[in-house]
């Protein structure tokens, strides 16, 4: 994308019917470090790459628990992500207080999307620069949603966002048909493999990734480093050599509605990413 005369504020349409500020916000998501999510009938797993700025600093927190049954992984402007997680926690607890019941994931996701939409239609605001992978469990089963700065949201079987997420997506696309019936451990294994894909040859250890699970009878929680390292070793995922030796299947965007959106709008591309 190049600078143009229609991209100064979010309330200006381009002649082609695009809101460039919103698209730029989606670019910010692509710059963040990778986060992936996948779900089966009874469990949802979130995993993300945690790169610290320097050896001296700590990792940025990218996975947040919103309630016992909902968690979120973010990619993009972490500060925006933190604020939205706080909103999610607030909504969850208010609902629980009034109704003594967990907030259905689908409703939280719509509320998030509406909140994001407001920022695309006020001249004094800017869109949130963060993509959210919302994982949750409710009466109707296990769910994984992706919330986009544009205010759109989609439900997914598996998805990846952030930098080098295409590698993870390709891996997931090959296997997603089996996820519904996967066991919790299989899901974790696939999540870790997918994360490894985004590392492009770097060694996968528990110090650079974070994994969280939520499932039937299992509250949302982040797995501790020891457990993750044990899983990595058990599944023999570490793999030092470039794992790109695995044949990469052709992209099948039709099977993941909106997956193409994340990769959309290369320079000069006509369709706006959020038009699905």
């Amino acid at each position, binding site marked *: 994308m190049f600078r143009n005369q229609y991209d100064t504020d979010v309330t200006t349409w381009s002649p082609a019917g695009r809101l460039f500020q919103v698209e730029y916000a989606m670019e910010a998501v692509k710059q963040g470090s990778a986060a992936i999510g996948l779900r089966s009938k009874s469990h949802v797993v979130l995993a993300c790459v945690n790169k610290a700025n320097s050896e001296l600093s700590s990792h940025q927190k990218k996975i947040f628990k919103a309630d016992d049954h909902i968690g979120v992984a973010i990619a993009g402007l972490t500060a925006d992500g933190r604020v939205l997680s706080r909103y999610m926690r607030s909504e969850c607890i208010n609902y629980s207080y009034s109704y003594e019941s967990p907030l259905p994931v689908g409703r939280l996701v719509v509320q998030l999307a509406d909140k994001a939409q407001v920022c695309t239609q006020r001249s004094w605001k800017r869109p949130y620069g963060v993509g959210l992978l919302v994982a949750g469990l409710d009466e*109707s089963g296990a769910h994984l949603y992706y919330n986009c700065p544009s205010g759109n949201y989609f439900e997914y079987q598996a998805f990846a966002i952030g930098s080098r997420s295409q590698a993870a997506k390709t891996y997931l696309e090959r296997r997603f048909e089996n996820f519904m019936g996967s066991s919790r451990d299989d899901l974790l294994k696939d999540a870790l493999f997918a994360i490894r894909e985004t590392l492009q040859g770097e060694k996968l250890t528990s110090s650079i990734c974070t994994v969280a699970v939520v499932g039937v009878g299992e509250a949302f929680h982040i797995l501790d480093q020891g457990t993750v390292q044990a899983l990595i070793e058990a599944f023999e995922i570490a793999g030092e050599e470039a794992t790109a030796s695995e044949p990469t299947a052709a992209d099948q965007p039709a099977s993941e509605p909106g997956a193409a959106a994340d990769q959309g709008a290369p320079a000069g591309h006509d369709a706006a990413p959020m038009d699905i």
Partner: protein
Amino acid sequence: MKLLDSTDSGNNSSIERTQYPYVTGTSVIGIKYKDGILMAADMGASYGSTLRYKSVERVKPVGKHSLIGASGEISDFQEILRSLDELILYDNMWDDGNSLGPKEVHNYLTRMMYNRRNKFDPLWNSLVLGGVKNGQKYLGMVSMIGVHFEDNHVATGFGNHLARPILRDEWHENLTFEDGVKLLEKCMRVLLYRDRSAVNKLQIAKITEEGVTVSQPYSLKTFWNFNAFQNPTAGAEGSW
């Protein structure tokens, strides 16, 4: 009932609050049975000691999964029904396959009643909330001060004193529909004899996974030919 409250602009000194109820309904009884919940209430509403209105429906469905029965001030019950209607409406507007079940409605009512109690302006009702969702039966009660609990059988007002002892002895898990109705009628009959605000016209409502059915109003058979009532002045000539 409020005439003025603190939201009335300017005049803060004449905050009025509900002090006493005017048009009131008497007991409601609810029990769990094999397929769901049964709830019974008579159709009377008294104006003090006058049995003024005799066709008041005090048991109403709420959404797809719940039934609410109320005793106490009828106008406050109507206000609660209006609030619940709005609640269910917004719930339906999500149009997403999720719906508020009896547990959620019960908790919402509890919050409403307790908040009003804290303002010293209660909704003068005792509510019975029952329902079935996803095979789970639920039966609970909320009082006008926000006391709430769940049980296998609940009652309001006089029902607590006259009906619950019967239910404690005779209620059991997996009552059939017929047995449940018989049990409720037994309780309602005792209330009819002994509660002066009871009228002999009642409705029994049932809620199961399939839905709600509210019976047509009907009367209970009563028996007054007890010996003690035959010649009431036998032992005291001249009295009545």
